[in-house]
């Protein structure tokens, strides 16, 4: 399968046996329509965003379990600090596509956006994207341009902030009916 023809194609990486195709964020809708109609990816199985704020800010040291070097006595693997690869922008949005054929084919289309960027909605390509995009908006504050019903889905409508952002504190919600009241 050749992915070069996808509109907005930026690059392709293979890791852990999975294919990730990076797409220009502005052209994701065209790319998805192309993937569905020309490449046969009939189904959008999942849409997931990730916040990379603070990614690589601190080196991680300690107990190493790598694919190749889990040997205790393997040189250079004990407690060395490593920094993860730099990411181009703050958020990634991953579209996991599936071709219902034999053998099955899966690909991850990935776009990179910064806080405040709008992403073209793919609801017109796959109706199932409706709730996935609403969840992404709810949890990360990424808005989808052209979505017919862009509002929160899991949190309350008047909720402050977007919980899955890295700068959103865990346990940060106000406690109602506490002793102080």
């Amino acid at each position, binding site marked *: 399968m050749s992915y070069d023809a996808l509109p907005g194609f930026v690059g392709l990486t293979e*890791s852990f046996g999975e294919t990730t195709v990076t797409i220009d964020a502005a052209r994701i809708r065209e790319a998805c329509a192309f993937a569905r109609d020309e490449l046969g990816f009939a189904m959008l*199985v*999942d849409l997931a965003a990730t916040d990379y704020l603070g990614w690589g800010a601190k080196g*991680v040291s300690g107990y190493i*379990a790598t694919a190749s070097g889990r040997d205790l006595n393997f040189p250079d693997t004990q407690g060395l600090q490593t920094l993860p690869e730099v990411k181009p922008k703050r958020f990634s949005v991953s579209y996991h596509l599936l071709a219902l054929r034999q053998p099955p084919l899966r690909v991850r289309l990935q776009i990179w956006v910064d806080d405040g960027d709008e992403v073209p909605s793919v609801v017109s390509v796959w*109706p199932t994207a409706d709730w996935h995009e609403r969840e992404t908006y709810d949890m990360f504050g990424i808005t989808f341009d052209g979505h017919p019903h862009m509002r929160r889905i*899991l949190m309350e409508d008047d909720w402050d902030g977007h919980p899955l952002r890295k700068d959103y504190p865990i346990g940060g919600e106000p406690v109602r009916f506490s002793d102080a009241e």
Partner: protein
Amino acid sequence: MTIAPERPVAVPAPYEGTRIPLPVPTILPVPEDVRASDDILRVNFGPNHPSTHGVLRLIVDLDGEKVVGLSAVIGYLHTGFEKTMETKTWWKCVTYPERIDYVGYQNNELTFVLAVEKLLALEVPEKATWMRMLLCELNRIHSHLIFLGTAALELGAVSMFWYCFRERELIMDLSEMVAGQRMHTRYFQIGGLAEDIPEGFYPQCREFVEWMPNALNDYLTLLDRNKIWLERTKGVGLLSADDAVALGQTGPIARASGVDWDLRRDQPYLAYANVDFNVPVYPEGDVFARYRVRVDEMRESTRIVDQCLRRLERMKGRPWIADDRKVVLPPREELHTSMESLIHHFKIVTEGFRVPEGEVYVPIESPRGEQGCYLVSDGGPKPWRVHFRAPSFVALEATATCTHDALVADLIAIVGSLDAVMGDSDR
């Protein structure tokens, strides 16, 4: 790993006659002419209603008894599992996935464990693989039994509930025997199983395998020619194959709409390539087809359990967890005698082990459809991002499409047949 023989494409891409509502695919809008009649009653169905299987809320517009508008509201059981897991070490995270889909708990646990093992490139002993398969199939039967019992109960077949929960109890007993707990076992570990399979498990599971086909015949006798059941399920809640694919439906819902797709056969994980089973597919796309798919699946799952059991009986005394002290806790008894074991134990429990940097998406066939786990690791001892592709979340997107021309009584049957677990959908 063997791949099933060449088959034609399951579903044609372009299609006409879609019933997915516009402009919002998940909201059934009230037609203008009906709205003009000014005789619409808006009813809140849920979030606390005995037949919504949890805290699903449907806002229903009724014209007499006809459902003319519908939108589903979820989020009442949002627990922030994905956020919480970012703050726990990989080893401690295993507890959470089970609580997400609390009916298909074993399958959820498997997704997460498989995803971490993929990042670690960790080899799992054969015995653990087969035992995982056995427990996942038992869990599938358990989940379908709960569907059948509750869905039938809501349509008036009260006795079905007791029959289904009678067999469910047998599975709970097996679960308790293996893991010490009836549900949420945390029996799967990264690298294998928490403990060896107890000796008494084999005969008791064998009894279950021999008993289950009779129980399934009982269910069919009670329901399959039951006039009321047929009237209330046949032709109700229609979903075409094309709509099912466009709406991302997988699992029993898709197979009841004629989409011949099962990850266990089409993208085998664990050892599914080495067992013999059929994938039931019904083309009707109604509530009755969804019921039949699940009953047939219970029969097939029983066959798989039987085959797993035969294999496992020959694997007694073999290791059940990977021998990798960097990831797997050392055996308890070694802690008293071995300094290295004590260090390993201490390091894994306090600091956790590190997982190589990268991102993976691991899908499995849970009782509700494709259950996926998307993991991002920065190479540290805690996950950077955990996301679950929840089949219930996606199934509920189809409510609006299924309730075209439905009556308010059909709504109960339709919501029941989608078999959504709210913990799964809201996470």
